[in-house]
């Protein structure tokens, strides 16, 4: 199979995945090469060029501090990924073992997980995040930790559901019959088979992380201006919308929608591709 044929085949099977990964890839490149692409420093103020409309020297205009909106939007992608990726890693590191053990062993751990999930379901997670970040301080690290921890149980639930389905499968029973200790059954036999289904959930949870972090910043408890974080930029720009300077909030808003949408499409597309039923019929 040629190197171009495989991506083409995947794109054909799931256009959703193709579009999602293209968006995410594009924004990731923007984040990596922000210093090269952005025309100015994101925090460089032009005191005599405050609230300039898009066009000319400032392609997307300037904000209330006279900072270039385009440069800030581009650098904002860094915050997007700086939140999404570590939060995603925390979710995997905590959620996967939790889900596997709870699903396979059941018992007290499973009970606790289910109760925690009930609590998380009952409270809007944004309220919890808000409370915790307000209490611990609004550094990037805190935001990442809070979002990662809050979402881990939800990720664990996805893994747990996969494990429950696998627990009674013949090959897991056969693994026990051959003499595998429980840790090996979980690590070697269940985990590699459960993880695939959970993979599709990861980008979706990462989209959630980006959204929550922006919301926190928008409310004013998250990362604060003048840091080029999209939520903070939207908050700053919101006051100018009434007076007609729409560009300050609109462009970071579009970027935010783009990244969230990209992650979501990526996740949906992945679950299309990984779905065993579709795989079976495609055979």
């Amino acid at each position, binding site marked *: *199979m*040629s190197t171009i*044929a*495989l991506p*083409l*085949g995947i794109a*054909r*099977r799931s256009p959703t995945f193709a579009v999602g990964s293209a968006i995410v890839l594009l924004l990731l490149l923007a984040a990596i090469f922000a210093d090269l692409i952005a025309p100015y420093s994101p925090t460089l103020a032009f005191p005599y060029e405050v609230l300039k409309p898009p066009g000319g020297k400032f392609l997307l205009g300037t904000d209330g501090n006279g900072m270039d909106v385009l440069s800030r939007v581009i650098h904002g992608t860094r915050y997007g990924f700086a939140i999404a990726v570590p939060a995603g890693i925390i979710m995997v590191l905590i959620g996967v073992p939790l889900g596997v053990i709870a699903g396979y062993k059941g018992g007290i751990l499973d009970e606790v997980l289910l109760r925690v999930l009930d609590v998380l379901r009952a409270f809007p997670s944004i309220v919890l995040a808000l409370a915790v970040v307000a209490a611990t301080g609004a550094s990037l690290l805190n935001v990442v930790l809070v979002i990662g921890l809050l979402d881990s149980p939800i990720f664990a639930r996805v893994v747990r559901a996969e494990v429950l389905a696998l627990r009674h499968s013949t090959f897991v029973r056969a693994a026990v019959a051959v003499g595998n200790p429980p840790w090996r059954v979980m690590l070697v036999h269940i985990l590699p088979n459960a993880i695939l289904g959970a993979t599709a959930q990861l980008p979706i949870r990462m989209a959630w992380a980006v959204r929550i972090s922006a919301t926190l910043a928008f409310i004013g408890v998250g990362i604060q201006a003048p840091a080029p974080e999209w939520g903070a930029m939207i908050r700053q720009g919101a006051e100018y919308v009434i007076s007609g300077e729409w560009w300050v909030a609109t462009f970071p808003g579009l970027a935010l929608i783009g990244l969230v949408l990209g992650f979501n499409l990526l996740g949906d597309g992945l679950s299309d591709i990984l779905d065993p039923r579709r795989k079976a019929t*495609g055979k």
Partner: protein
Amino acid sequence: MSLLAVEDLHVHFASRGLDNQLRVARALNGVSFEVEEGEVLGLVGETGAGKSLTALALLGLLQPPALVAGGRIRFEGRELAALASGARDHVRGTRLTMIPQSPHTSLDPLTRVGDQLVRMQREHRRLSKAEAWRRAGEMLAEVRIPAPEQRLRAWPHELSGGMAQRVLIAMALVNQPRLVIADEPTTGLDVTVQAEVLDTLRELVRAHGMSAIVITHDLGIVAHYCDRIAVMFAGIIVEQGPTRAVFREQRHPYTRALIASTPKRIAERGFAHVGGTPPDLYALPAGCLYRDRCVQAADICVQPPLNMRFNQGHAALCHFAAER
């Protein structure tokens, strides 16, 4: 003239892989057979041989990616493919019907048994509800369901496996078809129940002068319930003929291997060397499709074998069919 004549039927599956390449599986490669009035034909073969696919093609129920790539199916003297879809539906509901496998998934769980039988009749014939209901009761009695009047009001989930299978037989026979196709009619049933269900089916087929095609992988069922046998391998019928004649003398090495594989024969004569994997339908070789597994294979087998005919319609697709 035969009730059903299938001539050189080809069915292909077209699919695209992850690499976007179009792949064609040649699932049926020239199936030809006939079913006479009042005859029960056993269609046997292993997984992937194309037994169920043949039935679906006969009924016109193939769904993409499967498509009929060639051949003719004549039923009661008419070319089925030439019929308009309405006429074909009518043939399928009244003249040529099917008993599906897995009774419990084939019945509508939300409709009472009697109503399903009524619906089956009224879809295809002008008939009052009361008349259809009366006939439904008679039909349940015919398939030996005890207390048929009460069973008409039963829900499918209230039926045991054997009862559900009998209801499916009643559904297939209620419009008095000329030919009924039974696809693995007793898989999932216990041995003791299987025999009784088959007895009932055979009696009804005989009593109404119908013909039947029984699709099965169980040579015991063919041996005792079918007049003729057709053995499929890789989408072709490699041997067919009267059941007794074929069991007495196999003309195709695959049939011979199949019969030698039954535990009874092994117990009598020991293990014969059999086995091997079925050919890859995506890349079928030229010539005899069985030659890679055949103990008799010789140079000539790269040429496609002719269908050699013997007495009483016994025929085999093998260069060496006349020997031994």
